[in-house]
């Protein structure tokens, strides 16, 4: 009797080199299109102009009232505030809805009413309630992140192998023991999926909320760029939104892998 070993697969060379070629071509083409005037610079800024503004914005608060990293920091705070609140509420709620009939019966109808309303549609109401400061945006972001958390946790529990549940019953396990020791571990891959999906939802809604109601943040920076007719600031804002989002995504991915590794192997 021997135990199986796992096999390591290497990435092909083409998949290592071609991405670099593709990204370089994209930026060079973009630069040329703007420099040669094919696209007028009132409609789009060249990458070099955006880079200049990027360095400028680290030291110069004008014309939008804050430094670049201050905008980013405001956005990150809002995003994580809403995100962690969404996890804290959504995951336990979804898990409970997946296993306990009382939780599903009570919470599911309300959830199904709220679910199809895009969080952005709540912005006018939240401006009535909270103004344009931090709490209102956290509320919008929370709503955005809540939906995938609940759905993934719920589906994850529902996907628990029914024969495993029966098996646990023949061992005398109670409902609560089955929920804790079987349903939650079974749902974990879906829950980890929710960490990523919810973050993406939070980030999207954050930008939407900041475009409409804010006095700082990356979305606000984009709006200011439009108002001031500065396409380079719009592009820089977009770029920073993408970069920060991707950066947070990588961190969550790392955390997820670390946690899964601890559970699986």
């Amino acid at each position: 009797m021997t135990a199986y070993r796992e096999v390591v697969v290497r990435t092909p060379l083409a998949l290592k080199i071609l991405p670099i070629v593709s990204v370089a071509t994209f930026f060079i083409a973009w630069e040329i299109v703007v420099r040669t005037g094919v696209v007028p610079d009132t409609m789009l800024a060249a990458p070099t102009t955006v880079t200049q503004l990027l360095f400028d914005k680290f030291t110069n608060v004008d014309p939008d009232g804050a430094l670049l990293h201050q905008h980013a920091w405001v956005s990150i705070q809002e995003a994580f505030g809403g995100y962690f609140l969404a996890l804290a509420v959504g995951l336990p709620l979804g898990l409970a809805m997946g296993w306990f009939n009382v939780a599903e019966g009570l919470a599911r109808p309300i959830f199904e009413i709220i679910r199809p309303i895009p969080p952005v549609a709540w912005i006018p109401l939240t401006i009535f309630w909270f103004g344009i400061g931090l709490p209102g945006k956290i509320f919008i972001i929370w709503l955005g992140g809540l939906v995938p958390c609940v759905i993934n946790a719920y589906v994850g529990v529902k996907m628990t192998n029914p024969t495993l549940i029966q098996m646990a019953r023949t061992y005398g396990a109670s409902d609560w023991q089955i929920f804790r020791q079987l349903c939650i571990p079974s749902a974990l891959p879906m829950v980890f999926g929710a960490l990523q999906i919810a973050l993406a939802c939070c980030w999207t809604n954050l930008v939407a909320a900041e475009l409409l109601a804010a006095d700082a943040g990356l979305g606000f920076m984009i709006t200011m760029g439009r108002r001031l007719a500065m396409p380079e600031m719009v592009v820089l804002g977009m770029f920073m939104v993408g970069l920060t989002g991707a950066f947070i995504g990588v961190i969550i991915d790392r955390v997820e892998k670390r946690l899964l590794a601890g559970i699986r192997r």
Partner: protein
Amino acid sequence: MIECRNVSKTFIQKGSQEVPVLEDVSIDVQANEFVVILGPGQSGKSTLLRIIAGLETPTTGTVILDGEPVTGPGADRGLVFQGYMLFPWKTVLGNVEMGPKLCGLPRDEARDIAMHYIDLVGLNGFEKHYPHQLSGGMKQRVGIARAYANKPRVMLLDEPFGQLDAQTRIFMEQETERIWQTDKRTVLFVTNNTDEALFLADRIVTIEGKLPGRVQRTYTVDLPRPRDLTGKHFLEMRREIIDASVLTL
């Protein structure tokens, strides 16, 4: 020990179509007896085992375990599944000690019991392995150790070796006999394999091959153990059982 009294089961399919699966099945199993329920696929024999396990309720009739009617699943009956049904995120040890832990035994005691049965099924050295690292035969050893570790009065095995290759299967049958001889339990073993039944059983109950399943005959196998798969008496009984079952197909 176990009495199935006139057990019938009818499933209601979608569109309220009734599918009778078992009809008037009565079986008595004595303490520490090894009874094999032998029947072809789709004969309701797994359903009978699930009724005894308490996972299904009979439409009519009762199952009585030590004088008490069965009303639901419980730790006094250990079920071994065809598909192994191990927790993929738990080690061999974690899977085997699950039952004792669920019963509220302290950690050390649960571990000692688990280690004892891991040893009994011949998996010592593999306690820290995860199910995905094990072969089919080894997985089912874990399944058997896990059922044993709960110290059930009755072991219920539902085609436990159905997914194994022929050689591993014969080996596991020998192991099953050895484990049973070492730590005797009342065993109800469901299979569609005549050799497996004859090799293991004190008594074989054959189930007819068409739904609803009915008890066809009972054979007492009083050959000395361990049995020779090509011995004269073994082959005579094999012919007798196969002849009788072929006629009903």
